[in-house]
């Protein structure tokens, strides 16, 4: 019996020491946990960005002219943009509010004719509150690039090489690479309107009322009686739609929605690749 009393007492003392030791280290452990949690939240946010935001805001958040503004850019984090829109609160709240609620209307005076969709389930969007938080953490993490002064600003919005211009036959298109074209349509955000949503005519056969893809319809449209453009074949028709989108509009769509910037910003190779890809969408 005596050894039990002795060992039992020692065990109680040992337990108390362990708990005290743990309690002393709690502030450090909790700080560590919070940092780890913040980091994991950014990871989750990155995955959500890839599946929900990338098609409009660009793969690396560099923004897509005419579709959605840059998030990976200095003006968002140095206060310039907040001043422009007249926001007096914290940037993080601005980002959270925008992600959660989107924009009820397209912002006037900008080159973004579409409204940003609502994302939070609170306002009828698809994402849970914690997922909105993950996205906010991810977007805010772009700020480190600029705070750290790494000069990575130049990485955003790479300047285009020689633009293809608006002529449909000059320069002649080089051979197209459909795989690169598909990647381009994602990088440039084309899929945001033509695949994910149907702000523009749907590319995929499943999403279009005719049941045919853009590759098939291009050939049909160019010979249709109401066609008013200058193209004489499917390739030229697609090229025209990219470089000079307002010449001829598909039924039900209005002028000015598709940005008329690609004649300057895309090279002949880019356009050839995109057309090669679109032609595969029968």
């Amino acid at each position, binding site marked *: 019996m005596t050894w039990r009393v002795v060992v039992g007492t020692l065990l109680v003392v040992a*337990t108390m020491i362990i708990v005290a030791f743990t309690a002393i280290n709690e502030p450090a452990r*909790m700080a560590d946990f919070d940092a780890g949690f913040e980091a994991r939240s950014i990871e989750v946010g990155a995955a959500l960005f890839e599946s929900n935001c990338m098609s409009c805001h660009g793969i690396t958040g560099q923004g897509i002219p005419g579709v959605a503004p840059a998030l990976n850019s200095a003006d968002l984090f140095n206060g310039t943009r907040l001043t422009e829109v007249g926001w007096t609160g914290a940037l993080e709240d601005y980002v959270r509010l925008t992600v959660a609620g989107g924009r009820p209307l397209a912002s006037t005076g900008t080159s973004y004719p579409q409204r940003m969709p609502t994302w939070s389930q609170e306002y009828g969007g698809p994402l849970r509150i914690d997922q909105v938080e993950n996205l906010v953490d991810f977007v805010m993490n772009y700020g480190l690039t600029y705070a750290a002064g790494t000069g990575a600003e130049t990485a955003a919005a790479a300047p285009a090489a020689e633009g293809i211009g608006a002529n449909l036959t000059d320069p002649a298109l080089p051979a197209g690479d459909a795989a690169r074209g598909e990647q381009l349509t994602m990088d440039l955000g084309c899929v945001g309107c033509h695949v994910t949503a149907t702000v523009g005519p749907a590319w995929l056969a499943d999403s279009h009322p005719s049941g045919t893809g853009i590759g098939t319809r291009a050939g049909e449209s160019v010979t249709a009686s109401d066609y008013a453009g200058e193209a004489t074949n499917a390739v030229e028709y697609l090229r025209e739609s990219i470089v000079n989108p307002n010449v001829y509009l598909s039924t039900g769509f209005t002028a000015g929605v598709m940005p008329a910037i690609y004649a300057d910003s895309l090279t002949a190779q880019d356009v050839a690749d995109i057309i090669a890809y679109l032609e595969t969408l029968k």
Partner: protein
Amino acid sequence: MAEIFKVHIPFLDDVKEKGLKDALVAKTDESVERLTAGMNIEAVRSMLRGDPVTRPNPRVKPHADGFWLHMRPTYFNKKVMPWYPTFRLGFLAVYFLVVETITGVILMFWYTPSTLVAYENMLNIMGNVPLGLMLRDLHKIGAEAMVAIVLLHMLRTYVTGSYKKPRQFTWHTGVWLLLFTLFLSFSGYLLPWDQLSLWAVTIGASMSEAAPPPVVGRIVDVLVRGGPGFGDIGLLRFYLGHVLLLPILLFIALGIHYYKVIIHGHSLPPGVEADGEDTARKVPMGVRDYFMPDVMTKELYWIALWTFIIIFAVTVGNLYHAPLEPHADPQITPLHTTAPWYFLWLQGMLKLGDKLIWGIIAPTVLLGFAFVLSYLEVGPSRRYIRRRLGMSFAALTVAVFAILSYMGTPYYAVSSSPDQEVMAVLAPQTHPGPLRGTPAEELVVGEYSTHAVASVPTAGLLELMELYEEELVKFGDDLPDSEGLMIIEDWQVGLKKITLRVLWNGGERAADLAVYLHADSNYED
């Protein structure tokens, strides 16, 4: 008038009479006697020293007059005091029930049963509440231990034949206790509202849907989950079941169970009595071990030991931590979802075929059999040698449950696409896994192939690529002529994107998995 307000303190009279010191000693002695319901200081000291008992025995008074000890016997038979035959399992089960109650009540202060904040509550408990992580880990380790100990206690009772006459009803209440313990543990599973919670419980709860006829199944399912899937209502139901209904039922059943244990006395080891005889109630003078001090010190020692073990395990020992997976998402089913380990046998049975037969009828029959076993098996002998059939049955049952549990794991008869399996080995959905466990600085930006494993720049990457190659070889039949790529890119400050791409049929088929990894995410721990 003055008389009404006259204050009379008897203690002052004592001081006047005996002097301050003697009066204080007498008062203390009296207080101790009141607190212990009958033992003064001298009796307590004599008890702790283990002095022989005096007549009348003051150590029985707390059992007769006090509330807490009236539930405990004054003495036990010496034969039931060693490890064998009880292994202290019943005591331990109650110990863990107390641990669960204490830690559970404290955790309730930081928990709201709502799908909007339940998961956030977990993060708060783990990252913002001092000792919160320890409490949560203790609650979880206690829950797992309690289930295991109750099962072992049941097995022990069966093996020593302690369920036989006159203890049939004690066994019966024990099966209820097992049932409540399982459901308590299971209902607690849902509360953190992570992927593990949602899917483990979904597997269990969806079985209720198979209850016949279909209309009943649908109603039961809706009653359990509060709707076609788990949401706020289902979470609230599980929460209330976990913190109110099931504990109440468990404590009631425990009261009855222990009352019966005391009424019949702890059954003596098999073989010390003649067949069919039960002498446990009468404990002759010579073979008594009094509760005070022998049993009490043993129990206190046992409490100190186990408290030390579990607290050590979840703190400085770092041996066990309650898991927390990503936020519950009904849209994303993790690659391999399993029920809690004590329900794996059920998941295994479900793989045998029909949900109604294996998911409802078979478990119901098994449970029903457990409930009435003590009334069906009425062989008089408790000696092992005369219970060959019974012992074989016990061994067979344990073996069958072990095999069924194995069958419940993803290792048995689960078909999924091999390319996903390979990538899931490196970056599983349900726990961090080797890729996330690799320190960020070891993941150097670049593109690596399993065809050129030797050329990777760091040891951590080498380990990963070797594992990658090994897995592709293992799935060689399904993924002929395969190559595994790992593309590491810088994505943001501190954040890397790692793309796993499995190519097979010589590059004709491919599958991708993207993993984002932050330098501070601490998965190594």
